[in-house]
């Protein structure tokens, strides 16, 4: 079934594009699909076996069962190891298949326009004919990304039903049904216990499965709401006519026109452009808009200027281009399909649960086989022994744990959602806690994704502007006349405007129309000098030369504010060195001074310094035009410049950057103290990347890169020992040449790493490199280019506001506020839930021993059964539940953010030590407590411990109605069964009592309970609830019929205060936990 499905998927792949990786993608897909269902197939296999067993004759059945139970554990572990090795080979094949995929891509950018037209049968003026367009549309399909093959709902549901823990319970349930079938076949009146147990187990699995399914469905519903439902429009030229069509109908060869504000409908080969700039940040991560022109500037299609990419935005200007690729064949589409082919691997918690199942199965099978052999030696029949074997194995299954773990994870997921971390997959809740490396995208995650003026240079001094999101930062001296002049130039020589209808919004939140740096200037001036609109109204624009790449400046001519002053004001901004060349004077403290060499030098220094901060620097100058040459009404001709653009007056520099988010440096610091390595991976320039990395603390103060050391010591880079540098900035092109070993070396030896200019594949390689070193990697990102890495990471974190749909689909977790700092919350919650799950599991597992030992003694020394199936279920699914869940609310014991991340190979969720303390120590104490109450009940009713051994055969014989007790009295079957059930109740109540103590023991791992306190209100409620439920179950009239639980006498209840004695021992153990046993590490 799984195979047929993937076959069709692979077919569709090869149909749409015949690239080299298509095959390996479909292969990996088929593997992942088939691997995701091993549990299903195992259970089906078991089911068919159990069905076929009915037709077998009985003697052979017993042998068959033995072999089955043995092979079961084997086949489970086999299938698991198989899936492991397969996924290993898988990751290798995927990483190998990537590099050629994009380099074999388009060559259209290298062709001339004519060649291009020929290739697509199109015309540079007329466009395609309608007929051709229709034909191409049929040939290529609609121009949209095929959504990743979403798993059908029923498969998702099945995954919940048959994944992880559930498989353990299912196995238990099937074994129960098997045991019942055997009993039904051999006995006249089979005890219904096994049947009930099987049914209850199945119900538990189904109910928890439904619960977690709906839980995840809820988060995916929130996901859906993110989706942008507005259909895109595109302006195409067909048969010479401009027409607006749905973007999905655009075909290859179409002539498309885009203008500022449009989303580019497909991959375009630009044929003509007017001041066109595109924002490629969603593809490359570069936050600066890039200009587009018809000339090929680079061999790499991603770098060349004459290609505009699907789903990026045109920021300003207009352009016309020929569509070269549509839909999935676009660069964006290809990245999206890369993502869907990646296998994301198991979450750490899933691995932990697997390990836990191994341990539990190991213990269960060991116990089962041991007692099976014992039972056979003691003279039980094979069939009885097999039933015992099954009984013991099933008794080891912690029925309530699945529900407990699910509820704990859900609670944490909810708590995290409140703190703006939406978790798509419940298991991912914990992953952040184990994370040891975070690969963060820069733009939008660490930074605000908004150009902001960061520095100004005037009066021969660098001034710092406020770049914080809430304007809480430092301000500079605004009284200087130079500043007034600079602000005027920046306001006037600026085409950006606020979009209408946003007056009530804070200035920084307003949308603007125009270039990012002009918008930055606009906002800066609006903030510091008031309405730019008014300034512009007062200084009417007379003429304007827009920016172009040959001039590298932009100028405009305005009337002055002063109505008596008839001079014109020329304002200019542009590349600082070009501006400086045109200036002969400079304003210092509002006074014009001649530009001397000293001034030029200090200008250079300021320029270099600001450039070194990774900021984009603009120079500003102005000139009040002499009235005699340019009288009022002078006709400025901008095309054929008829006025001076030389000997201007330099005003100042302003530099802009996409500033880091306010909370990020703190968050990075927290990550660092939590032992998490933060790596920046960006498509941006190394200098900018490094500046931001320094700004947010990814490269911490005082740490130098190899280049820094070289420049400090004035020696060539090659002479610097790379080990001396803790930080490093690696360029994408260098990364390409690194071998795997070199890569590992870098990741291992540098603590502070920045990757700049990286392509999506390289991001993937970085993630894989980290994972190879055993790290658990979280990747944050918002762009489509991040999505393969998001998928590959152990936990992908997408941005809720700025993130693209593709990235959100690939991610496991979504930061609703786009704030990197929310990750820290996630890490904290993840670590807490790991600790608390450990506590919950220790608590739940403990009661397994007092539940199993009665059955073992029942078999071995033939005493009346001390604890029945129903009472066991009452504990596991009743009284134990709330206290176990309440442990999820336990506060952190110490500052968990000061700890190193857990080592996934050593720090297991459930380790031998936990089993040892839960089973070997506390469990034993509990069992003794239970047995004590059992012996009390029996002895006080006349059956002293001395006659109990070996009494079982007569005790359970319905026909024996005159069984003699220690005093010579005779008992009917029903009479002594009532005593037995009273024993069950007593045993049950005593387990509840010792579990009081156990929950307090498990409450802490390192601290003493006196240090930790009893502040967990849910836990206190749990204690009362547990007690009330126990009282309800044993004292409610009718329970004797319904659950066969009989009320205890007050004296019996009070003898259980004796059990408090045992409880005291438990607490004693707890007190010495720090010294010896319970370090958990």
């Amino acid at each position, binding site marked *: 079934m799984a195979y047929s499905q993937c076959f069709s998927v692979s077919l569709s792949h090869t149909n749409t594009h015949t690239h080299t990786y298509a095959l390996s993608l479909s292969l990996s897909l088929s593997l992942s699909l088939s691997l995701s269902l091993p549990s299903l197939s195992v259970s089906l296999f078991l089911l068919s076996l159990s069905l076929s067993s009915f037709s077998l004759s009985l003697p052979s059945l017993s042998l068959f069962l033995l072999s089955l139970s043995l092979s079961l554990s084997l086949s489970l572990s086999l299938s698991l190891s198989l899936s492991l090795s397969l996924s290993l080979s898988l990751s290798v094949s995927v990483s190998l298949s990537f590099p050629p995929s994009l380099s074999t891509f388009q060559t259209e950018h290298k062709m001339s326009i004519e060649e291009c037209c020929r290739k697509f049968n199109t015309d540079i003026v007329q466009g395609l004919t309608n007929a051709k367009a229709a034909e191409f549309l049929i040939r290529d399909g609609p121009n949209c990304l095929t959504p990743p093959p979403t798993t059908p709902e029923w498969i998702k549901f099945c995954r919940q039903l048959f994944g992880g823990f559930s498989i353990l319970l299912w196995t238990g349930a099937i074994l129960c049904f098997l045991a019942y079938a055997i009993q039904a076949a051999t006995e006249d009146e089979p005890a219904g216990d096994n049947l009930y147990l099987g049914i209850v187990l199945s119900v538990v699995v189904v109910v928890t499965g439904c619960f977690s399914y709906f839980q995840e469905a809820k988060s995916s519903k929130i996901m859906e709401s993110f989706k942008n439902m507005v259909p895109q429009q595109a302006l195409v030229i067909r048969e010479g006519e401009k027409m607006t069509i749905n973007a999905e109908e655009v075909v290859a060869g179409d002539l498309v026109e885009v203008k500022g504000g449009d989303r580019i409908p497909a991959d375009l080969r630009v044929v003509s452009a007017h001041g066109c700039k595109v924002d490629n940040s969603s593809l490359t991560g570069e936050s600066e808009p890039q200009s587009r022109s018809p000339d090929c500037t680079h061999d790499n299609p991603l770098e060349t200027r004459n290609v505009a990419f699907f789903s990026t935005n045109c920021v300003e200007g207009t352009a016309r281009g020929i569509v070269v690729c549509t839909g999935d064949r676009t660069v964006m589409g290809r990245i999206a399909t890369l993502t869907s082919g990646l296998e994301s691997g198991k979450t750490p918690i899933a691995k932990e649960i697997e390990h836990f199942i191994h341990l539990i199965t190991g213990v269960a099978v060991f116990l089962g086989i041991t007692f099976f052999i014992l039972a056979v030696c003691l003279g039980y029949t094979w069939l009885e022994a097999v039933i015992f074997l099954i009984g013991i194995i099933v008794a080891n299954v912690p029925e309530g744990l699945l529900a407990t773990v699910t509820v704990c994870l859900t609670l944490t997921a909810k708590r995290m959602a409140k703190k703006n971390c939406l978790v798509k997959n419940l298991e991912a809740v914990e992953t952040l806690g184990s994370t040891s490396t975070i690969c963060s995208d820069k733009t939008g995650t660490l930074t605000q994704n908004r150009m902001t003026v960061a520095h100004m240079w005037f009066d021969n001094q660098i001034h710092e502007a406020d770049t914080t999101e809430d304007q809480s930062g430092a301000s500079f001296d605004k009284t200087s006349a130079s500043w007034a002049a600079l602000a005027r130039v920046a306001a006037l020589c600026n085409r950006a405007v606020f979009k209408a209808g946003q007056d009530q919004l804070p200035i920084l939140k307003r949308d603007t129309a125009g270039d990012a740096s002009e918008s930055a200037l606009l906002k800066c001036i609006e903030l510091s000098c008031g309405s730019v609109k008014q300034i512009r109204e007062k200084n009417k624009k007379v003429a304007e030369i827009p920016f172009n790449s040959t001039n590298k400046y932009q100028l405009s001519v305005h009337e002055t504010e002063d109505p008596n002053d008839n001079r014109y004001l020329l304002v200019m901004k542009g590349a600082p060195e070009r501006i400086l060349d045109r200036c002969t004077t400079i304003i210092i403290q509002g006074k014009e001074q001649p530009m001397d060499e000293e001034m030029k030098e200090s200008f250079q220094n300021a320029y270099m310094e600001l450039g070194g901060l990774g900021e984009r620097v603009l120079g500003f100058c102005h000139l009040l035009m002499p009235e005699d040459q340019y009288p009022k009404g002078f006709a400025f001709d901008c095309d054929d410049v008829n006025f001076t653009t030389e000997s201007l007056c330099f005003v100042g520099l302003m530099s802009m950057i996409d500033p880091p988010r306010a909370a990020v440096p703190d968050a990075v610091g927290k990550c660092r103290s939590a032992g998490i390595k933060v790596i920046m991976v960006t498509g941006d320039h190394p200098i900018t990347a490094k500046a931001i990395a320094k700004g947010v603390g990814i490269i911490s103060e005082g740490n130098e890169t190899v280049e820094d050391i070289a420049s400090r010591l004035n020696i060539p880079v090659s002479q610097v020992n790379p080990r001396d540098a803790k930080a490093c900035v690696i360029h994408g092109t260098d990364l390409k040449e690194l071998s795997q070993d070199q890569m590992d070396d870098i990741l291992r030896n540098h603590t502070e790493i920045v990757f700049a200019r990286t392509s999506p594949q390289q991001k993937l390689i970085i993630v894989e490199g980290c994972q190879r070193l055993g790290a658990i990697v979280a990747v944050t990102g918002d762009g489509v280019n991040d999505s393969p890495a998001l998928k590959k990471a152990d936990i992908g974190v997408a941005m809720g506001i700025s993130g693209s749909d593709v990235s959100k689909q690939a991610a496991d977790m979504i930061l609703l506020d786009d704030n990197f700092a929310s990750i820290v919350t996630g890490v904290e919650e993840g670590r807490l839930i790991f600790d608390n799950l450990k506590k919950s599991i220790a608590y739940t597992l403990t009661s397994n021993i007092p539940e199993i030992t009665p059955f073992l003694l029942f078999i071995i020394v033939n005493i009346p059964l001390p604890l029945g199936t129903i009472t066991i279920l009452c504990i596991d699914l009743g009284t134990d539940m709330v206290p176990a869940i309440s442990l999820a609310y336990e506060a952190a014991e110490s500052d968990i953010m000061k700890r190193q991340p857990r080592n996934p190979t050593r720090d297991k969720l459930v380790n031998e030590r936990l089993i040892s303390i839960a089973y070997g120590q506390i469990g034993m104490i509990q069992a003794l407590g239970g047995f004590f109450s059992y012996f009390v009940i029996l002895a006080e009713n006349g059956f*002293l411990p001395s006659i109990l051994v070996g009494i079982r055969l007569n005790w359970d014989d319905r026909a024996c109605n005159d069984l003699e007790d220690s005093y010579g009295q005779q008992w009917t079957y029903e009479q002594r069964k009532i005593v037995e059930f009273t024993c069950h109740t007593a045993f049950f109540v005593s387990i509840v009592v010792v579990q009081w103590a156990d929950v307090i023991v498990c409450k802490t791992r390192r601290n003493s309970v006196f240090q930790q306190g009893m502040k967990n209100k849910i836990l206190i409620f749990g204690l009362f609830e547990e007690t009330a439920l126990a009282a309800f179950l044993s004292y409610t009239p009718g329970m004797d019929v319904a659950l066969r639980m009989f009320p205890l006498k007050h004296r019996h209840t009070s003898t259980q205060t004796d059990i408090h004695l045992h409880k005291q*021992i438990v607490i004693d153990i707890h007190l010495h936990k720090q010294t010896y046993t319970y370090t958990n590490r």
Partner: protein
Amino acid sequence: MAKDAEKSTWKDFIWNSRTREFCGRTGSSWGLILLFYLVFYIFLAGMFCLTMYVMLQTLDDYKPTWQDRLGTPGMMIRPRGKAMEISYNTTNTETWDMYIKTLDNFLSPYNNSLQAEKNEECTPDQYFVQADSGDVKNNPKRSCQFNRTFLEKCSGLDDHTYGYQAGKPCIIIKLNRVIGMLPGKDGQAPFVTCGAKKEDSDKIGEVEYYPENGTFNLMYYPYYGKKAQVNYSQPLVAIKFLNITLNEDINIECRIISNNIPPGSVRDKFAGKVSFKLRINTKG
């Protein structure tokens, strides 16, 4: 390659010769763990024994603390048959031989000679009360004779087959021992009455009770327990089916009639009553 590595780690895990570790621990580490568990379990066992000892000290040697589950004494038959089902073939000795043996064994302590030797004759129709005077126990307590001959035709003395061969089988009924139970008030002794279940009522035929009327004489009560009353002889009632319908399953129920034994719970089919199935085949 990866598999090889895994294999070697597994081997290393079990016995790592380099670090001399077995299952990830050195010998001394295992030794310490075992020592800890040894000491710990000895301590626990000691604790448990202590509490058990204290608990046993609180118990009375002669009377259990609680008897409330024995309000209605159970009844039982001999022979028990297989799951309360007595069926045999008169012509086939082997099918009823075991019943005879069971009855012989069961009745042997009631032989008159034995009874005369160990027990004494008591005044009939009144309780044989042997009260303690305060803390001074009146032990050992004496018991009354119940002679095998009281069962007359069912004593097995005259008819060694207890009527089984003739198709007129004897069934012996006893009332479960309960310490201190006084089964009748105002001097009225409890007695057993047997009847068939509805649909079989015409098939049961005539039934004879021994001793007369199927009474349990009051002199056998109260019972003082195994320890105080070592030679206690539990009174019996035998019933003999004189002309029961042959070759058919007949469901018979016997119950105790007494003026102070409360009716047992509905769920307990053996409290104050006993039911069994009887089938006597005559054909080969």
